[in-house]
């Protein structure tokens, strides 16, 4: 629904982008308020880390501000901003893989017992009193599973399922063909299914627990 709202406001957003390109601070901030939550939630699913996602979002918008005058086609803004955010997410992913930064709260460990122990830890970072514990637990596991699949497949899944993007738009962001995007999505979903099963998350267990 939120994605639809953004699409509806795209017409006025074009004007905002134009004004922001011309250096209008107010328009830029309106643009920020229009996109901030989306980019944050996108980054959060990409890296599964609250503070890291907030940091990536902030850096994305600083990059947007600095490079906005260079954006030639206003229509390409959406794919452009997602490309910036995706690059930052993948960059952080590489750093973590090299062990330069703090590891994710949920590791790629497949041992069920370890996961339960880590959930208590995760509560501190993801703490939000509005959200029920079950919901939080499920999201942590879900995002953790997303972490364990290859980055291109993960990116496609998030863009399609959570950002509601068209295959054409995703292909544009990732600079590839629509067919490749669909293939990645197929493989990603199949892998995600396996990972979720390993963590005992199925339709049946969900309907029982939630």
């Amino acid at each position, binding site marked *: 629904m939120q994605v639809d709202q953004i699409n509806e406001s795209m017409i006025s957003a074009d004007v905002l982008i134009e004004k922001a390109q011309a250096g209008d601070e107010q328009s830029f*901030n309106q643009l920020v308020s229009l996109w901030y939550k989306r980019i944050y939630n996108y980054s*959060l699913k990409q890296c599964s880390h609250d503070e890291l996602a907030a940091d990536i979002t*902030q850096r994305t918008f600083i990059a947007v501000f600095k490079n906005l005058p260079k954006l030639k086609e206003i229509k390409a803004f959406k794919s452009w901003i997602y490309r910036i955010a995706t690059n930052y997410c993948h960059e952080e992913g590489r750093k973590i893989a090299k062990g330069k930064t703090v590891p994710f709260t949920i590791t790629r460990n497949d041992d069920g017992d370890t996961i339960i122990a880590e959930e208590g830890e995760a509560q501190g970072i993801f703490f939000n009193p509005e*959200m029920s514990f079950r919901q939080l637990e499920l999201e942590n596991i879900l995002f953790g599973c997303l972490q364990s699949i290859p980055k291109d497949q993960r990116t496609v899944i998030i863009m399609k399922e959570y950002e509601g993007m068209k295959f054409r738009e995703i292909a544009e962001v990732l600079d590839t063909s629509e067919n490749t995007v669909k293939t990645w999505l197929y493989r990603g979903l199949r892998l995600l299914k396996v990972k979720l099963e390993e963590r005992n998350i199925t*339709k049946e267990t969900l309907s029982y627990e939630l």
Partner: protein
Amino acid sequence: MNYKPEESTLIAYLYGELSGEEKIKVEQYLSENQEARRELDEMKEVLGIMGHAKDREMEAPVFSFSSPSKVIVDSKDRGSWWRYPLGIAASLALLMVVGYLTSFKLSSIDGELIVAFGDQKDVQGKMFTREEVKEMITLALDENNKLVNQQIKNTKDNLLTKVNQESPANVDQQLLNEYIQRLRQYNAATMAGLLEESEQEQRRYTDQIVQDLAIFMDLQRQDDLELIQSRIENLSEDTRRFNQQTGQIITSLLSDETQNDNQY
């Protein structure tokens, strides 16, 4: 049947993007191939599970940029809960170190608060009684009053002498005369200059008027001449026309006469 759809085609089918012949082909394949059907159902299930994740709220910060190269982000502090206690602890530790280095001492004896850096000095003997303090205040006030009075007097004297020096009685009569003389001369010179200037101005003005009048008279004369000429021309034209008309009348009278002659 050897048809096996590609992974991308199956995804397109899952998202309802297929139509026509291709859709029928995939549906047929799935009905024959239980394994592929199950896999697709499982994918739908995964999408259903993913739908349980909700967007988290995030307030957008305000970006302000005074110059293009500098971007300031004003964001609400997302700092961890332990930052404040740690800050307070660090401040206390700093205070303690400073206190130790300056050998700060704070003590209370018989209701007296003594603050000292280093060793405490004995100040017991330097106590004043109420009367002594009163006397000191009176003394200080008296001295101050004297000083102020003296200053007022000095200023008054200065002013008086100044006023006396500059009174008209003391001004030199000769100087005044000279001044008046000079003033008169100056005025006379100015008046003469003005008169001369005015006279010249008048002369110029008169000349101008005479010239203008001459030009005007000339023009007037020319106009009059032209008028007279045109009148004369009109008159001669009228005379010519009159002659013609007279001729015509005479001719018609003559022809009438001859016609009458023929009739009878």
